[in-house]
C-alpha cells in the first residue's frame, strides 16, 4: 500500500517536473532518453493489471473512490461508480468537455465479468472566462456496467485513471484503482453507497423513445453555416424548458443554444465550431434537470431555400419579406434624414420639362438601386469573409460620420441661402442627369441612420438568407425608397396636384434647413460617442473652418479663392487624420447604474436565477433607438416597473463595431438596431418587442407575467 502511494507520487512528480528535469539535462541527450525509459517503466509497473489493491485514488482537489456492491450476483448487471469527490468550485468534465478541458479516461482490465462502456450522467454548462465547458461542479460518479460471468467466484477490476480538475487553472491527475468482490446469490450494497449510485444512475441518459421531447429535425441554418438548429416537439403535458448538450465538441459549440418556443415546438439554435467538418448526423443529450435522454444519430438535413431557424424567414415567404422591404423603403422617404433633401429636389423638378423629368426620375432610381446593391454586396462580401457586421455598419466608422456631418452642414447652409455653391450642388440634380443619379446615391447614405418600421425584419432576413435573396431584399428596399419620387416624375398629373411653384418655395427651403441643422447636431453627438470628447471638437472645428473658407471665397477674387480652397483642403485632411487617430482611443458609452453593459454570461446567470431580463440593442447613430430610449426606456414609471420586478437591464451598445453584439443579434435573425429582447421571469427564450416602443407595451409585459 505504502509503496503504491510512493510510486504514485513519484509518477506525478515525474510528469509535472519532467520539464525542469529535462532542462537540466537538455544537452545530454542520452540521459534524456534514459529518463524517458524510466518514466515508461514506472507507467508500466504502475498500470499493470497485477498491481496493488488500492480502492481509492487521490489528486489535488480530487478524491476518487468506488461505488460498488459488497457482493455481486452472477449474471446480474450492476453499475459501479468511480465517485469523484471534488473540492468546492472545482470541476471535472463530461464526455464532451466543451471549449477547453478534457474528459476523464478509464482504462479497465477485468477478470470474472463483462464490462461495458463508461456511462456519463448528464452535465451542466460551466462558464469559464470566455469559454463554456461541459462538466460537473461538485461530486460526480462516472458509471461502469459490470456483469459477472456465470462461473465466476470473484470479480476483479483494475483501472488506470486520468482526469483533469479545473477551477480556472487546471490540474491533471493520474491514478490506479482496483476492486475485488465475491460473486454470491444476491447483490448487496452498503446503503449509503447505493443511494449515491442510484442518484447518478437516474441521471444517465436513457433511450430517446421515452423522452418527453421528440426530435423533429436538425438542420444547418442557412447560409453561412455558422449555426445548426434542432427542432423538438414537446409532449402535450410538458411545459418545462429542457437543457440540451451536444455530444460532438468538434461540430457544435458548448455555448448555450438560442431557444425559441412556439406552443409545444422548441427550436434550439447552436453555434457550430468554426471551420467544423459538416457531418451527416450527430448526437445530443437532453435533460429536464432530473432525468436525461440520449438523442442518438440525429440526421442533419442540408437546409434548402428559406428553411431557416429564425423567426421571420420560415413563416414568411420571401415575397412577404420583399413587400416589407419595399414598404420600409417608402416610409424612409418621410424620415427626417431624407425628407428635406427629397422635397427640395422635387420642387426643383416641378419647373423642369416633363421629358427631362422622366429621365431625372429614372436616373435617381438607378442611383438608389446601384448604391443599395453596392452596399448590400459589400455587406454580403464581408459576411462571407467571416466579418460579424450588420446594417448601419457605415455609421460605426468615425470618418463616415464626419463625412456625413460635413455633407449635412453644407446642405443646411445652402438651404439657408448662406452660399450659392452648395445650393447649386443640391440643384445640380435638378438640372443634370448624372446629378440625379448622385442624388439617388446620396439618398441611400442619408437614409441609413433612419432604420424605420418594416426594415428591421427585412434587413435581418437579408443577413441570413442566401446571397441572391438577400440582394433582392436590398433592391426591394431601394425600389421602395425610389418609388414615390419616380412615380411623381412619371405621372406629371401627380405633380400638378402639388402647390404651384412660387416664392413660398424659397421660404420652405429655408425652413427645411432646420431639420438638417438638427441632424448635424445629432451626428456630432454620435461622433462624440464614437471617439470621445475630441470627436465633436474636431467636427465643430471642421464646420467652422469650412464656413470661414466659403466666406473668404465669396468676398475675394482669385487669390482669395485659392486661399479658401487651401484652407478647406488643409482642414479636411487634418480633421480626417485626427479623427482616425481618435477612433482608436474610443470610449464606450457610459452606462448608468440601472443599465448594464452587454454581457452574455450575465444574462445567462440571471436566467438561471429565474430573473427577468430586458436587453436594449441600441446605437447612438440610430434615431429610432434614441427616441424609444427617451420616451419609454428612461421613463420614470417604466424604470420603477423594472425595479419593482427585479429586471436585469442590459444595454447592448452597437455604436461601435462589436462582434459579440452582432452575433447576439444574429441569433434573433436580426442585424440592425433597435431590437428589444424580453426574457420573462422564469423563461429562457426571448420575446422580441416591436421596434417602436410605448409605455403601455412595457406595462403589459408585467401584467401578463402576473
Amino acid at each position, binding site marked *: 500500500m505504502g509503496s503504491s502511494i510512493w510510486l504514485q507520487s513519484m509518477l506525478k512528480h515525474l*510528469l509535472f517536473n*519532467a*520539464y525542469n528535469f*529535462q*532542462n537540466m539535462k537538455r544537452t545530454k541527450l542520452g540521459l534524456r532518453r534514459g529518463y*524517458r525509459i524510466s*518514466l515508461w517503466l514506472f*507507467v508500466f509497473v504502475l498500470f499493470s493489471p497485477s498491481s496493488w489493491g488500492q480502492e481509492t485514488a487521490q489528486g489535488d482537489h480530487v478524491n476518487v473512490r468506488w461505488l460498488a456492491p459488497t457482493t455481486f450476483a452472477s449474471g446480474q448487471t450492476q453499475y459501479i461508480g468511480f465517485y469523484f469527490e471534488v473540492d468546492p468550485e472545482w470541476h471535472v468534465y463530461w464526455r464532451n*468537455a466543451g*471549449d*477547453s*478541458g*478534457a474528459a476523464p479516461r478509464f482504462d479497465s482490465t477485468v477478470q470474472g465479468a463483462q464490462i461495458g462502456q463508461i456511462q456519463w450522467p448528464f452535465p451542466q454548462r460551466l462558464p*469559464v*472566462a*470566455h*469559454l463554456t465547458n461541459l462538466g460537473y461542479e461538485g461530486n460526480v460518479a462516472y458509471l461502469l456496467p459490470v456483469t459477472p460471468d456465470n462461473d465466476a467466484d470473484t470479480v476483479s477490476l483494475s483501472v488506470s485513471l*486520468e482526469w*483533469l480538475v*479545473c477551477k*480556472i*487553472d*487546471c*490540474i*491533471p491527475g493520474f491514478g490506479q484503482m482496483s476492486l475485488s468482490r465475491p460473486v454470491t446469490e444476491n447483490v448487496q450494497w452498503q446503503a449509503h453507497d447505493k443511494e449515491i449510485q442510484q442518484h447518478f444512475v437516474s441521471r444517465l441518459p436513457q433511450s430517446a423513445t421515452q423522452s418527453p421531447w421528440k426530435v423533429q429535425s436538425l438542420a444547418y441554418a442557412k447560409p453561412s453555416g455558422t449555426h445548426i438548429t434542432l427542432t423538438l416537439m414537446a409532449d402535450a403535458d410538458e411545459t418545462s424548458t429542457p437543457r440540451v448538450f451536444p455530444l460532438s465538441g*468538434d461540430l457544435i459549440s458548448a455555448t448555450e443554444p438560442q431557444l425559441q418556443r412556439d406552443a409545444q415546438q422548441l427550436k434550439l439554435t447552436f453555434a457550430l*465550431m*468554426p*471551420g*467544423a*467538418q459538416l457531418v451527416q448526423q450527430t448526437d445530443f443529450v437532453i435533460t429536464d434537470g432530473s432525468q436525461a435522454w440520449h438523442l442518438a444519430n440525429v440526421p442533419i438535413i442540408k437546409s434548402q431555400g428559406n428553411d431557416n431557424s429564425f423567426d421571420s424567414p420560415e413563416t414568411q415567404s420571401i415575397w412577404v419579406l420583399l413587400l416589407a422591404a419595399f414598404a420600409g423603403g417608402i416610409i424612409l422617404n418621410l424620415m427626417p434624414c431624407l425628407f428635406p433633401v427629397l422635397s427640395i429636389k422635387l420642387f426643383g423638378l416641378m419647373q423642369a420639362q416633363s421629358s427631362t423629368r422622366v429621365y431625372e426620375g429614372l436616373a435617381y432610381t438607378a442611383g438608389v438601386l446601384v*448604391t443599395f446593391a453596392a*452596399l448590400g454586396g*459589400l455587406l454580403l462580401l*464581408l459576411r462571407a*469573409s*467571416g*466579418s*460579424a*457586421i450588420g446594417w448601419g455598419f*457605415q455609421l*460605426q*466608422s468615425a*470618418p*463616415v460620420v464626419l*463625412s*456625413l456631418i*460635413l*455633407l449635412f452642414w453644407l446642405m443646411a447652409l445652402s438651404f439657408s441661402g448662406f452660399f450659392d455653391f452648395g445650393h*447649386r*450642388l443640391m440643384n*445640380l440634380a435638378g*438640372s*443634370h442627369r448624372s*446629378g440625379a443619379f*448622385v442624388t439617388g446615391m*446620396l439618398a441611400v*447614405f442619408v437614409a441609413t441612420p433612419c432604420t424605420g418600421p418594416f426594415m428591421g425584419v427585412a434587413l435581418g432576413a437579408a443577413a441570413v438568407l442566401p446571397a441572391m435573396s438577400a440582394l433582392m431584399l436590398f433592391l426591394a428596399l431601394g425600389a421602395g425608397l425610389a418609388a414615390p419620387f419616380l412615380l411623381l416624375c412619371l405621372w406629371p398629373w401627380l405633380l400638378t396636384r402639388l402647390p404651384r411653384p412660387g416664392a413660398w418655395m424659397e421660404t420652405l427651403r429655408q425652413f427645411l434647413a432646420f431639420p438638417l441643422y438638427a441632424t448635424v447636431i445629432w451626428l456630432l453627438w454620435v461622433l462624440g460617442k464614437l471617439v470621445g470628447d475630441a470627436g465633436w471638437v474636431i467636427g465643430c472645428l471642421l464646420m467652422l473652418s469650412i464656413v470661414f473658407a466659403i466666406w473668404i471665397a465669396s468676398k475675394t477674387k482669385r487669390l482669395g479663392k485659392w486661399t479658401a480652397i487651401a484652407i478647406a483642403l488643409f482642414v479636411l485632411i487634418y480633421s480626417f487624420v485626427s479623427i482616425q487617430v481618435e477612433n482608436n482611443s474610443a470610449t464606450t458609452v457610459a452606462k448608468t447604474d440601472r443599465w448594464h453593459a452587454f454581457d452574455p454570461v450575465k444574462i445567462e446567470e440571471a436566467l438561471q436565477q429565474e430573473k427577468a431580463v430586458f436587453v436594449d440593442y441600441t446605437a447612438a447613430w440610430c434615431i429610432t433607438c434614441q427616441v424609444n430610449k427617451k420616451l419609454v426606456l428612461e421613463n420614470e414609471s417604466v424604470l420603477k416597473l423594472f425595479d419593482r420586478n427585479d429586471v436585469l437591464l442590459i444595454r447592448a451598445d452597437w455604436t461601435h*463595431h462589436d*462582434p459579440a453584439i452582432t452575433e447576439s443579434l444574429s441569433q434573433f435573425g436580426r442585424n440592425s438596431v433597435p431590437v428589444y429582447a424580453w426574457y420573462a421571469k422564469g423563461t429562457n427564450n426571448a420575446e422580441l418587442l416591436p421596434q417602436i416602443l410605448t409605455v403601455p407595451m412595457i406595462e403589459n409585459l408585467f401584467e401578463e407575467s402576473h
Partner: protein
Amino acid sequence: MTYKYKKSIFAMSFIALLSFPFLAIAVALPGKPAPDFTETDASGMQHSLSDYQDQWLVIEWFNKDCPYVRKHYGSGNMQALQKKYTENEVKWLTVISSVEGKQGYFEPNEALIEAKAHNLNASSPFLLDIDGSMGKAYGAKTTPHMFIINPQGQVVYAGAIDDNDSANPAVIESSMNYVSAALDEAMAGKEVTVASSRAYGCSVKY
C-alpha cells in the same frame, strides 16, 4: 457645364468617403484569410502577418504553467516539431496571450529566460500579446492552440496539436499529430485531410 461637372466629381468623392469599408474578421478559419496582427516579441522585434508573406507560418499559443503545454514541452515534442519545420523554411511563432496578473504572463526579460529554458526552437522568442488582441483576433481558445498559414496568407489548419487530449506525455507517441500532417500535406500541394479540430488544453488567460 464644366463647373457642374466639377461639382458632381466633388459629390462623388463624398460618396467614396462614405463607403469606407472596415474589416474585422471574427476568427481564423481554415480556407479564410488569416487575421492580421502586429506584436512585439521578447527581444523587442515587431512581427506582423505581412512579414510572413510568401512563407509558411505556424502560430502556437503558449502558457508555461498549463499541464498540456508541459505535456508537449516536457516531452520535447513541441521543440522537435519546431526544429523539424523551421529547418524546412517554415516560420514558427509562439505566442503568449496571458494578460498581466494571470497565469503565464511574462515581462520581456522573463520571457527571454523562459524561451531559453524551454529550449524553444521557434523562429523568434515568445511573441508577447499582452492585451490579448492577437489571441482574440485568431479566436485562440486554449494552450496549445495551433494555426497554420500558407504563403498566400490563408489559414490551412486551426485546432489542436494532435488527436489525444490526455495530459499524459506517454500518449504522444501513439497520437496522430494534426499539425505535422497538415503541414506535410499542404506543403506538398495536397488538400489537408483534417483542417480543423477541437483545440484541447487550458483556457487562454485573457
